[in-house]
């Protein structure tokens, strides 16, 4: 852990696929940007250097629970040290669409030792705000499945042999991930958001929470846009 706390603010959103968290953090970004604040957005699994390996590993189904966990940690470490940490040092508000808790939840479902995963991510700062978008499992599944998507192998937890049917596997996998999130919510003190409400109302709530918890005047941009 870094001994001296960086002056920036770290905000993460977590939740099931279909919980609407990406929409909410996007709208939060737009608001903070519009206020002319120093704000940076980063999303899970997007480091360019690690992406090729991750993609191939997924397409060719080369990944085991252990290497699945490690390759995501590698991706995270690259973004953490290249973007997140410098941005925090530079006094930015950093918005993360999924953070280490996504790994904590998924890797636990895949049978990885939770202590091992936590220690691996021990270098990462715990967010100042972790907004957890909670909604009933059936609602989340409905939002994803009604579009008749082509579910991906790992996304549906097919590597766990839960069911030969990919949609059924996805349902079981999401249920287990949700169970993990519920445990993490109390362990790490997530701010629980009611993700069944309409987008606008949720966003008002998100802005109220961030506006009340962060002195936004400290984060005005010093660079003319």
């Amino acid at each position, binding site marked *: 852990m870094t001994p001296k706390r960086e002056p920036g603010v770290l905000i993460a959103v977590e939740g099931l696929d279909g919980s609407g968290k990406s929409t909410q953090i996007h709208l939060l970004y737009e608001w903070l940007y519009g206020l002319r604040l120093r704000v940076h957005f980063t999303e899970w699994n997007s480091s360019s*250097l*690690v992406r*090729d*390996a991750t993609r*191939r*590993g997924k397409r060719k189904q*080369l*990944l*085991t*629970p*252990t*290497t699945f966990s*490690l*390759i995501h*940690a*590698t991706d995270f*470490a*690259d973004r*953490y*040290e*290249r973007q997140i940490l410098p941005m925090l040092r530079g006094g930015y508000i950093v918005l993360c669409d999924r953070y280490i808790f996504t790994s904590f939840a998924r890797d636990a479902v*895949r*049978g*990885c*030792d939770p202590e*091992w995963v936590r*220690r*691996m991510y*021990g*270098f990462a700062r715990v967010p100042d705000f972790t907004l957890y978008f909670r909604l009933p499992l059936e609602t989340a599944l409905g939002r994803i499945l009604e579009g008749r998507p082509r579910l991906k192998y790992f996304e549906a937890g097919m590597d766990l042999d839960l069911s030969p049917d990919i949609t059924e596997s996805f349902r079981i996998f999401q249920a287990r991930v949700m169970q993990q999130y519920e445990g993490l919510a109390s362990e790490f003190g997530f701010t629980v958001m009611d993700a069944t409400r309409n987008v606008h109302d949720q966003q008002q709530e998100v802005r109220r929470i961030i506006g009340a918890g962060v002195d936004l005047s400290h984060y005005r941009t010093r660079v003319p846009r």
Partner: protein
Amino acid sequence: MTPRERRCFGSPPPGLDLARLTGALVVIEGPDSSGRSTHIGLLADWLEQEGYAVAQVGLKRSRLVGKELEAAKEGNALSPRTMSLFYATDFYDQLENTIVPAMRAGSVVLADRYIFTPMARDAVRGADADWLASLYSKAIVPDAVFYLQVSDRTLVDRTLASHGGLDYWESGMDLGLERDWFGSFIKYQRKVRAEFRKLQQRYGFEAINANGSIPGIQTEIKERVRRVLHALYPHHAIP
């Protein structure tokens, strides 16, 4: 060690049934130019002549990330922490997809470096020893680890003679120890050696004085491997 006593340093990775591993795992560690690959090659020939199936693994050889890791080293663009995790990914891919299947089939796995070289290199670059120990705690405990130790003089002589120059990473140039590659090489190798000493204490493996001639050292290694295999394969005695 009998298969029943087979264990990992910590709890095993999900899906690994240690009781089914009937093969052996022999590790050779040491810097480049310490004679590692030569000894691995000689051991492999000898074991095959004795009728053992042999499988070989080494750093950066995984199907999953081997190529990307090589590219990352070329580009020198990843932070030390990212490199640590990348190497660990490469290691576990080989552990689960090469080492474990080979050991399940009863083969002798020869590892041209295992977890100790990445750990020592990462420690030199500031990684926390406990963080590293946890990261690699899912690794199978080898039946034998030979750490080839050579003096600065021997290492420099052999490296210059065989490569006609020094390697960026093996000289620790990313650490900014010295502008001069030769000086940096010496300083870096000393640091790695110091980290290896700590690992030796933590994991209890032996160092072999590898300054001497290849045949002499090979005889010493063979003698120890013979003892290890006698215990593991009681019905397959090497004369």
